């Protein structure tokens, strides 16, 4: 009787261990960043998010109306500021056209088929945000049917916000740069009085609300408020997308390299419309 009970106990322990191993293996497989969603997952996700969109829409409408009424204050002041920007716009457009022509001529001369900043743009609305999980993600209303694919960069007017981490037929999930992910590294360059200093964006400091850029030599001098943009290297983020401006410069524990804090102008708490970038040369 005692031996039977002991055997039964061992079997139970073995079964539990086996179940735990299978479950952990399953989770390890599905948690991979390179995993594509399966067809049933896409259908379920699209359906649930469609219902979610219907539920959230009235509240979002009310929220927008409240924002609108608060923005109507100081309307004249904003009008004056915008008018100044519009007046300068024609000069900016002319300069842009001139630069585009120069780039095209150079490409032709050097027989370049592509450069690191050729992009196509796709606008999308944010339909959901997830903060219950560890990764700060948002869901947008564009998916495979709109030409979105994994790892496309996602921006707002003030700069880069993240990349597409998974795609279903009609929706996509964007993993934000503010996520604390050990795999979230981006090659960046700091505009140091016309010269570029290259570094690696390694993470986000939640306390100071700033990105951390490392891999810069201690001998390099960097000025505060220098513009930080993507390099386009690494084949994920196109070149020239704004990350932010240098806020603080410190050194690491061994005084061998600089650590730069970069403040972004993006309000990650209030993202409603985004733009998905795709390189013209990517598949």
């Amino acid at each position, binding site marked *: 009787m005692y031996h039977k009970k002991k055997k039964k106990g061992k079997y139970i322990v073995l079964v539990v261990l086996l179940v735990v191993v299978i479950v952990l293996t399953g989770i390890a497989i*599905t948690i991979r960043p390179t995993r594509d969603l399966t067809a049933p997952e896409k259908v*379920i996700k699209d359906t649930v998010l469609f219902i979610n969109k219907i539920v959230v829409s009235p509240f979002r409408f009310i929220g927008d109306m409240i924002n609108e009424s608060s923005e109507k204050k100081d309307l004249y002041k904003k009008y004056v500021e915008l008018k100044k920007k519009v007046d300068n716009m024609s000069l900016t457009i002319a300069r842009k056209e001139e630069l585009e022509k120069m780039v095209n001529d150079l490409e032709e001369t050097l027989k370049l088929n592509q450069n690191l900043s050729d992009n196509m743009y796709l606008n999308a609305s944010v339909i959901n*945000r997830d903060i*219950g999980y*560890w990764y700060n993600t948002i869901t947008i209303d564009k998916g495979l049917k709109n030409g979105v694919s994994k790892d496309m960069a996602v921006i707002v007017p003030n700069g880069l916000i993240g990349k597409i981490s998974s795609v279903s037929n009609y929706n996509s999930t964007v993993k934000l740069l*503010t996520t604390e*992910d050990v795999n979230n590294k981006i090659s960046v360059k700091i505009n140091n009085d016309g010269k570029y200093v290259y570094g690696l964006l390694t993470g986000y400091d939640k306390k100071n*609300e700033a990105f951390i850029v490392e891999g810069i030599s201690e001998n390099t001098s960097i000025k505060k408020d220098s513009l930080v943009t993507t390099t386009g290297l690494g084949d994920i983020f196109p070149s020239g997308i704004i990350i932010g401006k240098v806020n603080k410069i410190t050194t690491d524990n061994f005084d061998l390299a600089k650590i730069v804090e970069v403040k972004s102008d993006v309000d990650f708490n209030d993202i409603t419309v985004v733009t998905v970038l795709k390189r013209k040369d990517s598949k």
Partner: protein
Amino acid sequence: MSLVLFTMIFSFFLEALVSNFIPMNTDLFVPCFTLISLVLIYPFFTKENYSYLKYAFILGFFYDITFTNVLFLNACLFLVIAYLIRAINIWFSNNAFNVIFISGVVIVIYRILNYFLLIFMTLKKFVLLDLVNSITSSLLINVIYAFIMYLLLDFISKKRKILKID
């Protein structure tokens, strides 16, 4: 059973709705209403405890597909939490204060398990402060939600004479 389904679906969509209006880096109001619904629905499973576990697993599965894209992570975590709720409810009667207490315990254990799973998968570095912040940021709003929903469900079940475990 319709009340159980209503609670689960309502909590699921309310969590998605609230997430849209709360600041991303909040330190106080991270919703986990879907998880709390497991605490709220348990008293309605008077006879069939395995149905309760099935519901927990399916709810976690849908949560995974919609919010995390990691299959079985929350499905398994919700199953473990359901077992835990079942075990704890043997020692506690069904009243508002016990629901608040169990909700708090459930959130703490869920966050710890979730965090250590991510560390095990080498997706996060271990920083104790992150874990503590995630727990403290989830407690307040979810405990309040558990309390309000408990009162509401208690009222509805008394009105409709629905049997509950006490």
